[in-house]
């Protein structure tokens, strides 16, 4: 329950920050969504192209409720490492994140966004490693170890932008500070990388997504001032 408590606190904090800036009363109609926005991450395929150890994709969907944007992100990621001494590691898994972004450009007629937000994230993955080592005292060690159907969870603080480029086409990025990771460590092989989170060797890490998005309108919005 602790991650849920964390996200609740963060959301309450963001809401208070947003309401503190709100001087005018808000029409209830403003909370009716103007559209559903779906995005495709460009960083994941770029990373896969630049590095032969990574593959993956990520998509996002959000919806506007006045200045609040409930968001769902889903993805798949895999790693494939080979060390010089013959040790190797590979994993593959799916992940999702759910949270909310708060837009601080509330008066922008195009509903462009500069936002702060929070996420709760969860990953399901399997991994396999071949561990090879030679020790002068204890001798040679060469074993293949597997973990199947593991889960991990973590929290994220996010910030970023969303900009309307042309009609229904949007671009935007999200920078993420990932923390409070929770792994199953009662396993024969310790996890090296969690799909969606990244390397597990540090308690906190960061991430970056750059989305090309399409917004499907559900109601007409007044534009102009």
């Amino acid at each position: 329950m602790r991650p849920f408590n964390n996200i609740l606190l963060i959301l309450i904090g963001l809401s208070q920050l947003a309401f503190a800036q709100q001087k005018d009363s808000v029409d209830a109609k403003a909370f009716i969504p103007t559209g559903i926005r779906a995005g495709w991450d460009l960083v994941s395929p770029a990373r896969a192209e630049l590095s032969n150890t990574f593959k993956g994709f990520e998509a996002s969907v959000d919806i506007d409720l006045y200045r609040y944007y409930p968001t769902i992100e889903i993805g798949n990621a895999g790693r494939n490492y080979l060390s010089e001494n013959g040790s190797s590691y590979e994993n593959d898994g799916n992940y999702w994140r759910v949270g909310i972004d708060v837009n601080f450009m509330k008066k922008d007629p195009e509903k462009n966004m500069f936002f702060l937000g929070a996420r709760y994230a969860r990953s399901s993955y399997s991994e396999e490693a071949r561990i090879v080592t030679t020790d002068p005292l204890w001798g040679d060690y060469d074993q293949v170890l597997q973990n199947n159907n593991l889960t991990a969870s973590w929290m994220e603080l996010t910030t970023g932008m969303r900009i309307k480029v042309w009609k229904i086409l949007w671009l935007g990025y999200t920078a993420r500070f990932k923390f409070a990771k929770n792994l199953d460590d009662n396993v024969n092989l310790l996890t090296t990388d969690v799909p969606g989170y990244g390397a597990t060797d540090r308690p906190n890490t960061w991430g970056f997504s750059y989305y090309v998005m399409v917004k499907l309108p559900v109601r007409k919005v007044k534009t102009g001032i």
Partner: protein
Amino acid sequence: MGLRLTAFPYLCQLLMTKVRKSAVILVLWALFGACLDQPDCYNLTNNTVNISYRKIFDGALDTVAIESVTIVGFDSVFKSTNRAVTIPLDFTKTGVSVVLDAVEGTRLIDLGYKVQPQFVSEECGPRFLFSELTASSPSGDSVRILSGTPGGEASHVAIYRCPRNNFVRLAFKQVVDEDNVKDTVSIASTAANFEALTYYPISGELSYMNLPLNLNTTSTQITLELSNPSRVATLTFNYDLVQKTVFQVCGEQTFIANVQVSSDVFEFKKIETTRYVADSIYDPPKINFAAFQ
């Protein structure tokens, strides 16, 4: 109002320009950061356990004359000092048995642990993470886990030595202006009338001595060869022997009570405080008698 309306689109455009620029910088930073985000390869496996010796009476570090440290099944002899030994853990098993050979006897310590391999990176290769350290002593010593995670400089296992129950301490004093002040005595050698393991310090310019008493009889004779001036002092200790269990792990031990001492060279005065009595034995030793020439 008019100024506000015309300024708003300008500010938005300015902000959007900055946003686009910052997005490019962030993408480059993300790709560059991915290259730098590699773990250090140094000292990744935490497979060392430090075992320290402590006195069961007060928990303070103890000095033990170690002759060798070995692991059952292996020929290698491992690093040790008089106060601690460092043992490497076997990542192919979940336990090792350590043999500590000391002047006072041999101790056997069984160490158990959890070991989990992990692939670290292409540059570093794999590592083994040790945790949940346990320790027991088939030889009957009191052992305690101080830290359950091996690795680093800290002490992980403490071996608590049962009390040494046969050392009496003398402090050499002299009378100056009716006050008893510290004196030093030049001692060339020390001998006991039984086979004692250790007694220290044994020679030199000494202000105090810890002398062993024989636990098999109620009397012990210690011979001190003094120099400057050269002469021999014979110290005779008489005492009672009492059987009692002070620490359960140590079982019933023989303790000394009602110690009396006499000598042909020294005169003695009992030293008593509110916390200690002169005619009993403590570990570490407390001053039982002041010796005046």
